[in-house]
């Protein structure tokens, strides 16, 4: 049986990979995917906690509720985010972050 | 009923926004306010004028107007006089009449509100209200580096206001009320005893806060460029009226409520005011333009009023310093407003304010020369002008505590040095008068037109109080009793 530590370790590694992707990659779509990875890594931790801390014999469904919410919000976020990317691409013809420097102060 | 005086300019402002003819509305409102304001000034003792509307239950906050003492009355008179003169004499650039006269009215309302408020919160808030049009007008319609100067003024005055706000909040917190008369009564009645150490801190905040608003050295470097750049009515209203807010606040709040704190800063205050008089005075001498010179001069003369405040601190029981300060505030406000309006007039007539380009204006514009002469000699404190009375009372108040056996106290030494300012102001004012009006005429001045009727009216409106009070100071001093 895998221990809680194992799950958390795997979840942490996935989060780290996502973080590295966000920092390293310049293609905004891939950056976006990496964000999804990070969210999922968090989801894994939540599910693991929910399983390893039972409540009256049953897994703690509050954790699973949270995961449910995260997935739903992530879906919405992806929809809006991708729409923004499309609009951005239309106006700038690029999705590379280093060419998108309008925010430069 | 004071609310009428305060809100009349705001109503006129609204009317202008809604499309009333700007200049006529402004002049009408200012003239009506002059009548009302002078009436209020001469009958301030009657309760008729007080007004109060509750705004908040806890902490108890009232929109309250009233005449706390003669100083409020005199300041209101100053405001209405200068406002009318500013609207009468100024000429808005094409297409900007709404902004121009609206700002003047708003500033007037702010100043009147601040001087009429008995409540500390609104006292502060009205002043801030008046600063907004100041910034706007300097930034939009100023001369020279207007953006930079507007920023400079904004930053200086806002920082001053913030420091001031901290001090005021502290005071209000200790007193448990925003109502200034009851605060003062509590202190003099002994119910409110503030710890001396706390008083020292509060006094420092108030001196720095109010001082920055009054361009006390070393917070003075905003004033001269601002007045040189600001459109004439703004310079008149700010230098003449709004700047007095800081002095008014020091006299109204700092001196009665934290006397021991002020006492502990006395020597610092004396040094700073001497810097105002002598240091800034020397700066004034080396100015090459009339507007820059007037800006520095008005900073310099603040020193005398601070000297009166110092005298109030030294001799708490006496009313001499108080009367001197109020009289000088009035006199300085009116004379500075007159000078700015005439300087503006000179610039409109000749196109320059550079001493090197001017000269011999007395030949083409005798009326202007006459009025400017009155203004200039008044500003340098020549006798039979209100400024002289103010200055001599200031000096007397500084010497009131003199004990020949004990020798000269710091305030007397400061006073003696301060009198040197009289010489300095004569130097620069005479130079200015000499180089503008005397000597052979130059190209710029040869065909300059003399004062028009409205110019004369506004100049008279300002010059008459100066002369009347100079000839018979009891006219104003009786109001202070």
């Amino acid at each position, binding site marked *: 049986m895998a221990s809680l530590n194992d799950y958390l370790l795997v979840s942490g590694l996935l989060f780290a990979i996502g973080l590295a992707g966000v920092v390293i990659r310049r293609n905004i779509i891939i950056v976006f995917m990496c964000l999804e990875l990070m969210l999922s890594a968090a989801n894994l931790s939540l599910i693991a906690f929910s399983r390893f801390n039972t409540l009256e014999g049953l897994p703690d469904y509050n954790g699973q509720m949270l995961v449910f919410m995260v997935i739903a919000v992530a879906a919405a976020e992806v929809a809006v985010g991708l729409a923004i990317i499309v609009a951005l691409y239309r106006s700038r013809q690029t999705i590379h972050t280093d060419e998108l420097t309008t925010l430069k102060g | 009923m004071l609310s009428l005086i305060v809100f009349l300019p705001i109503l006129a402002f609204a009317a202008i926004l809604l499309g009333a003819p700007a200049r006529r509305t402004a002049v009408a409102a200012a003239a009506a306010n002059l009548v009302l304001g002078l009436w209020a000034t001469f009958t301030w003792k009657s309760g008729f004028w007080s007004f109060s509307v509750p705004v908040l239950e806890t902490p108890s906050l009232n929109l309250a107007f009233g005449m706390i003492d003669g100083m409020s009355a005199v300041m209101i008179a100053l405001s209405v006089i200068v406002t009318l003169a500013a609207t009468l004499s100024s000429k808005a650039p094409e297409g900007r009449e709404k902004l121009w006269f609206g700002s003047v009215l708003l500033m007037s309302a702010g100043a009147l509100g601040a001087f009429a408020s008995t409540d500390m919160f609104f006292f502060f808030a009205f002043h801030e209200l008046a600063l907004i049009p100041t910034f706007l007008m300097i930034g939009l319609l100023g001369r020279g580096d207007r953006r930079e100067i507007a920023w400079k003024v904004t930053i200086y005055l806002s920082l001053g206001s913030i420091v001031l706000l901290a001090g005021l909040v502290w005071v209000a917190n200790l007193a448990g009320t925003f109502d200034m008369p009851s605060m003062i009564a509590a202190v003099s009645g002994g119910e409110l005893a503030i710890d001396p150490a706390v008083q020292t801190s509060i006094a420092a905040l108030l001196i720095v806060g109010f001082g920055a608003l009054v361009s006390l050295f070393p917070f003075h*470097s905003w004033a001269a460029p601002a007045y040189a750049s600001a459109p004439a009515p703004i310079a008149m209203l700010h230098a003449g009226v709004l700047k007095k807010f800081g002095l008014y606040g020091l006299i109204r709040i700092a001196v009665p409520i934290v006397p021991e704190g002020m006492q502990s800063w006395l020597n610092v205050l004396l040094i700073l005011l001497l810097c105002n008089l002598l240091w800034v005075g020397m700066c004034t001498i080396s100015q090459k333009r009339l507007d820059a010179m007037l800006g520095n001069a008005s900073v310099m003369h603040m020193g005398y009023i601070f000297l009166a405040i110092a005298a109030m601190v030294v001799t708490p029981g006496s009313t001499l310093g108080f009367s001197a300060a109020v009289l000088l505030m009035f006199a300085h406000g009116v004379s500075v407003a007159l000078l700015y309006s005439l300087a503006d007039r000179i610039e409109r007539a000749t196109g320059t304010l550079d001493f090197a380009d001017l000269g011999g204006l007395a030949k083409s514009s005798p009326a202007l020369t006459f009025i400017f002469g009155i203004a200039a000699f008044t500003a340098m404190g020549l006798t039979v002008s209100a400024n002289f009375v103010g200055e001599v009372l200031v000096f007397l108040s500084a010497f009131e505590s003199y004990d020949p056996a004990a020798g000269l106290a710091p305030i007397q030494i400061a006073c003696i040095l301060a009198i040197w300012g009289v010489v300095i102001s004569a130097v620069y004012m005479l130079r200015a008068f000499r180089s503008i009006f005397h000597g052979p005429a130059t190209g710029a001045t040869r065909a300059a037109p003399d004062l028009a009727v409205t110019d004369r009216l506004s100049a008279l409106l300002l010059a008459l109080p100066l002369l009347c009070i100079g000839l018979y100071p009891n006219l104003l001093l009786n109001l202070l009793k």
Partner: protein
Amino acid sequence: MTLAWILFYLPIVTSAVNQLVLRRNPVVPYVATAASALCFLISLVLLGREGEVGFNWATIGDLNIRIALKLDQLSTGMMVIVTGVGLLVHVFSLAYMREDKAVNRYFSGLGLFMFSMTGIVLSANFIMMFIFWELVGLSSYLLISHWYHKNSAADAAKKAFLCNRLGDFSFMIGVLLLWGITGHLTFEGLREWADGGGVAAAPAGVLGAAVLCIFGGAMGKSAQVPLHVWLPDAMEGPTPASALIHAATMVAAGVYMLFRLQLSIGSDAFDNFAGTTIAWIGGITALLAALMATQQDDIKRILAYSTLSQLGYMIMAVGLLAGEAGMFHLYTHAWFKALLFLGAGAVIFACHHQQNIWKMGGLCGRMPITSATFAAGTAALVAIPYVTSGFYSKEEILAAAYSGSTALFAIAVVVAFLTAFYMTRAFVVAFLGKSRSDDASHAREVKPVMWVPLAILAVLSLISAFLTGPLNAYRPHEASLIIVAASVVSLALGLAAGFFLYRGKNKDPLNIPAFRERLYFDGIYDNVIVRYFQDATAAIVHFLDEFLINGLLAGGAARASQGFGNLFRRLHGGSLQAYSFAFGLGVLLVIYFTVFF
């Protein structure tokens, strides 16, 4: 006492009406002259009256400053001088200023001056005196700058006002100190204080300092060294105004004020370092001015320096505790110096505004009346024994100096010699010999409206010493023989030297650049004090203000915040990766600090 009020207000009311209502009306000069005549009559009526009348001017708590007219021997006597000379000058000006375009402004200025001078003379307290003290400065400024389009006149006016302001600075401090010591501002109060033994009880040093500071005011107004430089320059004004203001009355106000002070707090208060300093400054002024006068070519300037010198005499007398002698000399000097100035005015008028004595000459024959009156004035000034009023008053001063200090007595005798010398020089060069220019050769005797005042003054300058009783002037005891001898000898030497040295000369046989250049006072003031001590200091302070306060203090704070802003702006590179890196690093640091630290 209504008369006193009329006397006080009449000139200013006339002046205001002239300037504001009548404006360019040609009747203005006559109105002004009529008013001054009325004032003179009132002064005569008021002679010998005593009393005080006034109203509260500024009242604050216990302090009550009054505008009060004080009538006593001193003030009524002085009023006769002021209004008398004033009236004659008004009459003289009617002709002298007839051609001037701004004649109305001139007469308004004279009215303002008469008002202010009346105020000084009748004032009952120091504040009121100070008010009018400055007002005469203003009217003097206005009259000197009458021809303002000339740069020299405009500069002279400015200089005069500034020198007076310097004096006023000191005067104000003196008044404050005196108020601090005695608690009184009124002359009456001061006298009561002094009678009550206040002088002995007061700390002597402070009292002396107060007296000296007040004397500083007199130094400005009466043009004592080192503030004397404005008076010669003030000759840029119209000559009648010079006669009234810068010779007879205003410049004497310093002496009047000192004597007023001496009467109030008593001579004892002067009997210390203050009195000595005053006497010495007076003596030095008398000597230096006389020396400078010997080498001037402008007739008005010669008279101006002689005025300085005579004022020095008066001040010296006051300093030597002989105020009566000073006042007596003031009284006689007013008449004969006004005469000399008006005479010079007549000469200048006749010579088409030629003021250089070397361009005159031979006027004796062409302008007999003027020459005769000028001679009378000269005689009074050089103090021809027993027949001129100047002799009697000068003897008193010499007597005071003789009993006071030998050195000052010697100076006074030398000054008497120099006076005789330079006045003889002026008279010989300008009036005797033959004409040295067209202007002079075309000169013709002036009209009666001008020479009648001259004649009246000429009579007065001869006999005024005998009119002291009716005119309420001060006149102390007679002088001793030794002094008469000294003054007669110096007079004879001076007359002889002046006459023989300058008779028939076409140019100055003496050339002493130091005296001609006024002992370099003006040069030093303009080039050193004004240029370096004032303008350069002002420029340096202005620079420091810009640099230190505006640049470093305020600007430094501004630049510091701007710098920080720029620093943080760098971080806003617009790079998403950088943001996310910073964000991730921040999160990790938070974890580090919460978990591991």
